């Protein structure tokens, strides 16, 4: 899926959460959006997922403005895993099946695919548990499975490992890399964990105070940042 944002601004009352942000998401690659807390990462992902409308600028998907061209089809090919995932008031397996059901996938396949997705995140034995009783880390893994099971062309991950122990961080990171490799899917992840950005992403975008400060190949950006602000952020001198 080809995703591009042009001159995006998003204003919340008197706060400018995004300020004229424009870039093209490299297709089939993993892109990390890094930046300190409050820099606009979540806001940006939500606009790409069409949950919020930009105040200015536009989103272009596969060369078209999705708002004008029946975005429901486009929406079914992407999914966002939220920073603080909420569970539906149902069992774990019913949560994971949700997206397949609204896509009218064949019932026998729904169960099979959902169970496999749960196994992949290490929750194979939790299918029947009432989802809101999952621990924070389990919720996060379940939310990831709930997105992955849809085999989306575009996956938007918002701090998708924030509540996890190192073992599970490694597990999910591997799932992301494998999925990206095996499916040619495009992945955009927001993180303030620089190590994670380094480990996972091919490309990197640095946001600061709603502005896009720098973008480029991850390796290059980490080894030789151009902007002094990027340099400061990478060396941990910015606390926000």
């Amino acid at each position, binding site marked *: 899926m080809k995703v591009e944002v042009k001159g995006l601004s998003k204003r919340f009352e008197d706060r400018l959460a995004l300020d004229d942000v424009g870039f093209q998401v490299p297709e089939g690659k993993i892109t990390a959006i890094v930046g300190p807390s409050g820099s606009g990462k979540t806001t940006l992902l*939500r606009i790409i*997922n069409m*949950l919020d409308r930009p105040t200015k600028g536009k989103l272009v998907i596969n060369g078209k403005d999705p708002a004008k061209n029946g975005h*429901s089809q486009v*929406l*079914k090919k992407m*999914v*966002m895993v*939220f920073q*603080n*995932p*909420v569970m*539906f*008031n*149902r*069992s774990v397996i*019913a949560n994971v099946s*949700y*997206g397949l059901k*609204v*896509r009218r996938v064949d019932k026998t396949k729904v169960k099979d695919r959902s169970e496999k997705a749960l196994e992949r995140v290490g929750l194979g034995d939790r299918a*029947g*548990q*009432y989802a*809101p*009783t999952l621990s924070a880390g389990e919720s996060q893994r379940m939310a990831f499975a*709930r*997105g992955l099971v*849809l085999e989306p062309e575009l996956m938007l991950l918002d701090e998708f490992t924030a509540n996890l122990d190192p073992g599970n961080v490694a597990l999910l990171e591997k799932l992301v890399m494998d999925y990206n490799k095996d499916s040619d899917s495009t992945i955009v992840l927001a993180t303030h964990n620089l190590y994670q950005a380094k480990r996972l992403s091919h490309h990197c975008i640095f946001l600061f105070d709603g502005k896009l400060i720098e973008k480029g190949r991850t390796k290059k950006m980490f080894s030789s940042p151009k902007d002094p602000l990027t340099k400061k952020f990478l060396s941990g001198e910015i606390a926000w």
Partner: protein
Amino acid sequence: MIWELIREVTLQLISGLDPETQRVVLITVLTLYMATMSTTVSSLIGIPLGAFIGMRKSQLFLLFRVFTHSLYGLPPVIAGLLVYMLLSRAGPLGPLGILFTPTSMIVAQCLLITPLITGISASAVDSLPKNIEDTARSLGANRIDLIKTMLYEARLGLFTAVMLGFGRAISEVGAVIIVGGNIKWHTQVLTTSIVLETQRGNFNYALTLGAILMLIALIISLVLTIAQKKKGSNLRSLLIKGGGKG
């Protein structure tokens, strides 16, 4: 029509009992019929309407909710009066000829319960975690899926709305006595017969009817309490198995 059928069947079934007991049974059956019908109709209107209102955050809908809430306190006799005027021979719906029938009582009760069910449904949907809607949308839900999901997620609150509506329907007097006429064997329900029997000094009879009414109310509150205790279980497992996961 439905009522005529239920009435005939009931009378057939209890034909062996003495007339006073027969009357008690018929009164109870009519009460349950009337409350069930009015709650059903009100729920069919109030739940979707409430969900719709609950999902909107704009000022206009807030105003609408305030209006709904103010109708909670609508005095039943006024509802009765309005429906009476509507259905009386000279009224706009006079030709239907349903005044002094169970149908007119159901109409009056709908006027009273629909705001209640709408209001509680709106709160139930409104108080879901904000991200539930976004999560469903992000997972690919279209508008109809979204409404279904919100209703299902708020099922406990909606169930409460329905039960409270039913509770109000069985215990209401003022409106049904005006539009039903409290006609023996025809439009008498538990509450209105208690009024009549008390006036006549038949306290034992009135107390018996009162006990039946209390019993129904007790069952409703029992079911509600269990439902609220077993938050998260779905309704089916709740009612069939008395709760459980999923």
